[in-house]
C-alpha cells in the first residue's frame, strides 16, 4: 500500500514533466523483469546491495549504527582486486573480507571500549578510506598505461564465474544469498546471534545478564566489515574485474536504505536489494526506449524509498 502511494506520487511527477506514467511503469517492469536477461541484470544490480544491506543489518541488529559499510566495500574491492591479480580467486575474496574487517575494526573497538559515537567515526572512516584508496590507486596499485585511476585487470582465471553467460550475472549473487540465508538462521538460532539481538534491543539488560556487550559490539562490527569487504571483492572479481574510479556509486549508503527498509531481516534485505536493483537496472536501459531522463527515474526511486516505510495507520 505505501508502495502504491509512492507510485502515485511518482506518477504525478511524471505527468507534470509530460510523460505517461502507466507507459513508463510498464517499461520499467519490462526492463526489470521482462526476460532472463533483464532478470539477470536486476539480480546483478542487486548483488552489491545484498552484501552492503546485510553488512549494515548485522551491525544495526547489535544496536551499532554502522554507516561505514561503504568504506569497507571500497577497500575490500581495492585489496581484493589487487590480491587477485597476484594470487587467485579465493585469496582475493579473503583479502577483500580482511580489508573490510580492517575498516570496521577501529570504530567497533572505539565504540566498545570508549563509547565513541560510531555514526561519526564510521562516516569519517568512509572519507578516510576514499582518500586512501584514491591515493593507492594512483600510486602503488595503479595499472600503467591506463587513462584512469585503476588497478591492473584481474586475469580471467581469478574471476568469479558467471552464472548465466552471456549475461553479466556472476556467482557473487549466490555467495550473497547464501550469506543472507546463513544470517537468517544464525541470528535466530546461534548463541552469538542471540547475544547480538539482546545487545541491540537493550544493551543494559544484556550487560546485566552477563552478555559481554563490548565484545558483541566488536564482533558485530567485524562481521559487518567482513561482509562489506567480501562484497567489494565479489564486485571486483565478478563484475568490474579491477578496481577503478567509480567502483562504488554509493552501494554502502543504499545498503543503509536496504537494511532499514527490510527492518534488518533477511527477507527484508533481499526484497530491498531487489527493489533498488530493479530500479537501477531498469532505470538505465529504459532510456533506450523512452526519453525519460535518469533524473526522473531517481526522483521515482527516492519517492519509493521514502514511502515504502511510512505507516499509514497509526497503531492504537
Amino acid at each position: 500500500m505505501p508502495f502504491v502511494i509512492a507510485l502515485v506520487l511518482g506518477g504525478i511527477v511524471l505527468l507534470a514533466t509530460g510523460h505517461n506514467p502507466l507507459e513508463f511503469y510498464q517499461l520499467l517492469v519490462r526492463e526489470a523483469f521482462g526476460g532472463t536477461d533483464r532478470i539477470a541484470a536486476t539480480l546483478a544490480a542487486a548483488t552489491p546491495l545484498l552484501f552492503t544491506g546485510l553488512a549494515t543489518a548485522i551491525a544495526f541488529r547489535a544496536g551499532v549504527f554502522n554507516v561505514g559499510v561503504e568504506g569497507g566495500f571500497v577497500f575490500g574491492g581495492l585489496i581484493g582486486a589487487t590480491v587477485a591479480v597476484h594470487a587467485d580467486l579465493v585469496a582475493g575474496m579473503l583479502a577483500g573480507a580482511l580489508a573490510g574487517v580492517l575498516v570496521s575494526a577501529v570504530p567497533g573497538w572505539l565504540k566498545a571500549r570508549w563509547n565513541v559515537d560510531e555514526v561519526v567515526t564510521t562516516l569519517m572512516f568512509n572519507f578516510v578510506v576514499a582518500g586512501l584508496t584514491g591515493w593507492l590507486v594512483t600510486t602503488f596499485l595503479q595499472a600503467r598505461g591506463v587513462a584512469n585511476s585503476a588497478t591492473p585487470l584481474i586475469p580471467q582465471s581469478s574471476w568469479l564465474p558467471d552464472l548465466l553467460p552471456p549475461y553479466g550475472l556472476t556467482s557473487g549473487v549466490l555467495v550473497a544469498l547464501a550469506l543472507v540465508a546463513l544470517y537468517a538462521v544464525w541470528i535466530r538460532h546461534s548463541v552469538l546471534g542471540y547475544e547480538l539481538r539482546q545487545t541491540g534491543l537493550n544493551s543494559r539488560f544484556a550487560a546485566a545478564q552477563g552478555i559481554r556487550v563490548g565484545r558483541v559490539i566488536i564482533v558485530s562490527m567485524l562481521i559487518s566489515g567482513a561482509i562489506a569487504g567480501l562484497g567489494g571483492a565479489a564486485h571486483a572479481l565478478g563484475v568490474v574485474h579491477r578496481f577503478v574510479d567509480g567502483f562504488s556509486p554509493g552501494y554502502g549508503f543504499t545498503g543503509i536504505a536496504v537494511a532499514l527498509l527490510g527492518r534488518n531481516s533477511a527477507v527484508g534485505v533481499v526484497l530491498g536489494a531487489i527493489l533498488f536493483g530493479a530500479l537501477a537496472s531498469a532505470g538505465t536501459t529504459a532510456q533506450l526506449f523512452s526519453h525519460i531522463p535518469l533524473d526522473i527515474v531517481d526522483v521515482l526511486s527516492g519517492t519509493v524509498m521514502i514511502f515504502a516505510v511510512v505507516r499509514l495507520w497509526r497503531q492504537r
Partner: protein
Amino acid sequence: MTVRLGARDISRAFGPVRANEGVNVEVQAGTVHAVVGENGAGKTTLMRILYGLDQPDSGTVVINDHPVRLRGPADGIGHGIGLVPQELAMIGSLTLLENLVLGTEPRRGPRIDWAAAQTEASELAARVGVELPWTALADNVSISVRQQVEILRALRRGADVLILDEPTAALAPAQVDDLLQLLRGLRDAGRTVVFISHKVDEVLAVADEITVLRGGKVITTRPVDEVDRGSLIELIVGQHVRFSEFASSAVIGDEVLVVSGDVPLSVRAGEIVGVAGIAGSGQDELVERIVGLRRSADRITLAGKDITTLPVDRRRLAGLGYISGERRSEGLSMDASLADNAIAGAHRTLGRYGWLRPSAVRAYAKRVLDGYSVRYGRISAAARTLSGGNQQRVVIGRELDRHPKLLVAAGPTRGVDVLGMSYIHDKLRALRDNGSAILLVSEQLDELLDLSDRIIVLHGGHIAGEVPGGPDSRNAVGTLMLGRKAS
C-alpha cells in the same frame, strides 16, 4: 453530589486482551477514591482513558456529570485532571526543576522565569514535606525522587482531580505517611483524588470509596467502612489468601558473600540480609558493585572466590543471581520475546557448537514461565505485552530457577499485587531455606522486616547500623534510615 470524574460503560481491548470491559465508575467530587485490583486488572488502562492518554473502544468519560470526549492529555488537563502515571513521565536529560515546570512554565515573554520556578518548587516541596535536589538531572536520581516530582508536578498544575497510579510503590514508610496525609488534606480542601495501590492498608487508611477491578471488569464499588483488610483482599484476588508470617532462618551456613571497604558486609548461606535506607543512600552502588556492573575498588568474594574483577557472566557462573530494581530497563528486555528474556544469562548452557537448540530453549523458557505462574499468551510475544506483575514473575523465575548461591534482589515486588507479593515472598523464603544467601534491597519496610534475618541500614553511603529482622525492629530501622543512631 456531582460525579467529578467517571467512566460509563468503558471498554478497551488490546488485541485479544480485554483490558477494560463495560467499566462503570463514579468518583464523587471531594473524595478519595481508591481503585484496586490485581496486576493486569485494567487499572492503568482505565486511568489513561480518564486522563485522555488513551481512547476507549466504546463508552464515555464523564466529567462533572456530563459525558465528554478526551482526544488527548491536553483535554484532560483542561478539565482539571492531573495524572501521576505509573510509568513515570520524567525526562532524563532535564533537571528536576525543568521537569517540574515543563508544559506550564512561569514565563517572562518567551523566557522562562527560573527564579519564579525555583520559588514555586521550593514552596511546593515544603508543602508536601520533601526536599529535592532541583538541579540534578532526572536520570541521576532515584525512582522515588522522580515519583515525588511527578506528584508535585500534578499539584502544581492545579489539578483538582489528581490521579495517582501506584504512587507509593517506591516510597519509604515515612514518605508514604506524608503522602497519605497530603491526599487527605487535598480532599479536605475540596479536591478529588483517585488513588491506585496494591497496598491494602494504605487504601483503607486514605480512601472514602473503593472500586475493585478484576479481569477488566468492576467487581464492586464500596464505601471504605463496608470492607476490612481481609474482605478487601478477597475481593481483589477472588479467593482467600493466607500470608506467611515472619520466620527467621533455621540453618545458617558459611559466608557466601563478603564485601570489604566502605560498606563491609557479609551474607551467609541460608540467610536473608536486608538493606534498608532512604533512596540514594548507596544501595544502587552496592548492588552494582556486587553484580559487576560497576567497578569496585574493594574486594568482593563469592563462596570464597575473589570476584572483584570478574565480568558479570563469570560472577553468574560462580553462583550469582540478580533481580534488578529497574525492571523495565535492566531486568527485562521489553521488546524481546518472553523466551529470550527467560533464557538470558543461561543461554550459553542451551547451546551446542555455538548454536542454540530450539527445543532446549523452548523447554527452558516454558519451565521458567510456567514454574513461576506467569500468565502469558505465546512465548514468542514481547515482554512488553505482559502486565507489570507478570513481568516481575518472569524476572523472579529466571533468577530463582538457577538456584543461585547468592541472590541479589532489589525491589523484588515493586508494583506487584498482593497475591503476587505473597507468592514472591514465599519463593524467596524457600530459596533461603534451600541454603542460598539472599541480599534483599527494598524501599518497602514491611517487606524487609517480613523477610530479613537481619537488616543493614545505609545512610549516606555508609552503614548506619544493623538490626535483627522481624516486625519489632520497625522503629529502629526507621530511626537509622534517617541517619540517627538507634537508641
